[in-house]
């Protein structure tokens, strides 16, 4: 298998060298875009690149998409296993192939910057940059175009795939879709414009010509088998881009807080399934006691997070620290109440 790949690569290098003719042969630039959808696609395609990386395992796809973010050759893409030092190549709109240098990734967002040498690029790069709140804003029900190299259907200067749909909604992954390989906990743009392997790292654009999101992995809920295409809003990428492209100093991380303590003792059962978060006891004088929680109350929500089990309550509370204020919703009998609870740190014994 390895030898086959090597042969393939030896063929592809001379092809890349003749990039200009190759590019022309596959160019459709004479056709004028008519609709807004076509205009959007044509406008943004030159800012997107194909990213090819190391493969090796059958299950790992050695391709993705990237977005040019500076004229100095910075390219933003989704950080994936296949992106490895000395083995990552970038294919520009005109079909030219460039070796990419790896910059530090952002483990929280799951994105990484690459850099190519702008001196080797014929013509000028057409970078995109996150706009202000209004420029990067989006609404549920807004039509969007998603661009990316889905399933590596496009090679060299062939145009990438465009998919069309609406913004389905805005969601926080933690609300329902907890999956291990996405650490990102901010809002995601959900869309029904299809987003498949290879599309990751591509962009999500509105019909009035704005860049609103970076395509990320399909949100695959093992619990319900529901799959949704998602994109990270561009505003959330800004701090990382500013640090590594513009060289701004990162904002100092806040000091870690002590783990939170509510004073609620949950009713727990031995067994695999975690029961709903019924209160078993409330420790006198604790934050929960001050709020008025009582035994047999059912805790159903912390802030906007639904709490369906004791396990989920622990998981969600772990996001907070002592001193934080959370909005607790609980049910007693048929009465649903809400109140604010100031988390404390656990009293020392």
């Amino acid at each position, binding site marked *: 298998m390895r030898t086959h790949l090597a042969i393939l690569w030896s063929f592809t290098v001379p092809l890349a060298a003749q990039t200009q003719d190759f590019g022309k042969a596959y160019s459709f630039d004479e056709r004028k875009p*008519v609709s807004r959808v076509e205009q959007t696609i044509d406008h943004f395609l030159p800012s997107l690149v194909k990213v090819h990386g190391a493969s090796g395992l059958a299950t790992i796809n050695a391709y993705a998409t990237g977005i040019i973010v500076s004229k100095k050759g910075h390219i933003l893409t989704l950080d994936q296993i296949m992106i490895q030092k000395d083995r990552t190549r970038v294919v520009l709109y005109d079909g030219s192939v460039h070796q990419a240098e790896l910059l530090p990734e952002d483990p929280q967002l799951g994105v990484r910057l690459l850099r190519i040498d702008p001196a080797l690029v014929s013509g000028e790069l057409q970078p995109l940059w996150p706009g202000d709140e209004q420029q990067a804003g989006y609404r*549920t029900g807004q039509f969007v175009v998603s661009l990316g190299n889905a399933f590596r259907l496009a090679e060299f200067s062939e145009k990438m795939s465009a998919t069309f749909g609406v913004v389905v909604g805005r969601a926080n992954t933690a609300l*329902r879709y907890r999956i291990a390989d996405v650490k990102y906990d901010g809002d995601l743009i959900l869309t029904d414009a299809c987003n498949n392997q290879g599309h990751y790292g591509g962009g999500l654009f509105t019909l009035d010509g704005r860049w609103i999101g970076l395509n990320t992995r399909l949100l695959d809920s093992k619990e*319900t088998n529901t799959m949704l295409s998602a994109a990270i809003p561009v505003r959330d990428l800004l701090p990382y881009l500013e640090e590594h492209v513009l060289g701004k100093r990162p904002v100092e991380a806040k000091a870690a807080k002590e783990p939170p303590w509510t004073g609620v003792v949950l009713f727990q059962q031995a067994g695999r399934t975690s029961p709903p978060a*019924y209160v078993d006891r409330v420790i006198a004088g604790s934050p929960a006691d001050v709020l008025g929680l009582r035994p*047999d109350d059912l805790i159903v929500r912390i802030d*906007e997070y639904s709490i*369906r089990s004791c396990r989920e309550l622990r998981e969600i509370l772990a996001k907070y620290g002592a001193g934080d204020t959370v909005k607790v919703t609980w049910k*007693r009998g048929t009465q649903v109440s809400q109140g604010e609870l100031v988390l404390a740190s656990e009293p020392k014994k």
Partner: protein
Amino acid sequence: MKQAIQLLTFGVLLTAGAAQQPIDPDEFLRLEPVLQAAMAKAAPFVVTVETFGGTRAVLGVDGPADGDAPPLPRPPKPPDEQPKPAPLPEPPVVPPEQVPPEGEQPKPVPMPGAPDADKEKPKDKDKKKIPLVAPGFQQTQGKTSGVVLTADGWILVSRFALNLDPTTILITVPGRGTFHAERAGEDTSRGIALVKIAATDLPVPEFVEPAKVRVGQFAFALGRTFAADEPTVHIGIVSARRRQFGRALQIDAYTSPANYGGAVIDVHGRVLGIAVPLSPSGRNAGVEWYDSGIGFATTIADIPHLLVRMKQGEVLQRGWLGVQFETSFLGPGAKISGTPKDGVAAKAGLRKGDILVAVDGVPVMNGPHFQMLVSSRMGGDPVRLEVHKKDEAEAVEMGPLVLADAPWSEQKQKKGDDLPASFSLPEKNEGR
């Protein structure tokens, strides 16, 4: 005459001109505000449904379904006769030093005396099964959606939301807060259920009569699963009408657990139907169709009498007469090939060889047509038949017969059976 020809030519030219209209470059930009306005109008009455607890497994050996486990029998009782929760005793104050570490002392779960406690206990044999709703599809208690039915607190939800027989149902009405909900009746054939919350002056949607829906018109499927502040939306068109024996519209907007129970609206923000998992044969869960471009929106504008029965706690099912047809008999009429012993037809004296000529005055074309006519009715509905008995010269009137609920074996999917029962597939070896 000449003038008429000129006019005709002019008309033809006009039509040709219309057909060659250039593409509207801003077509979708213009649709956006329409969609936004429809969503804004519909957002207040699309509610969030959350369920907690519940142990009943809904499962199938080789598949489905929302339908596979029969609904638990529930005696009809109006919700205001529900036992009131006993006042809670003063909580015992536990001194901090005596508190054992969290999670050491198991005790039986919920709230003695609370209304949740007197829910029916699941049967032991159901407990052992895995809560599968379709192959590879496991249902959990994610949020789903619902739609306000009346201003005094009746909420329509998908039966899917109640599959696990939850001990607690909470409904969040946007801008009004979260309410405890009591379960009332359901309609298994439409995949919907009713719950009641203690609220008044709720925003009520306008329901579109199914007869007025056009195939090809826009259909927006709203849901409340992901975000609390605004509904999610999937767009599509009405693919077909009168699915499920006239109980649902087919749409091509994605429907999934993310918007089951939510409203499917038109461009004016009026409700076309409620998104539910259904399947064409009406016998399996329908969840295997999720996100496939085949979705169903149950229509309810034409069933006010059924909603009255559901409010009283009745579990409604598809009507069943209990006849099988000779598939070789092509009509007119439907020839009976058998009548199951306990069926309504057998009890009424219908036998093999009799030909059913009309249902409530509508002439029967053939077996599938007869099944269509009967299956569009509910269990408990009366039906008049015109029957040509085997040994008699004239057709006779029968009835009214009261339809039974379709037995569960009739409704659930059998292995390899995805066609209505009235069609038989040729034997595998036939013609080879």
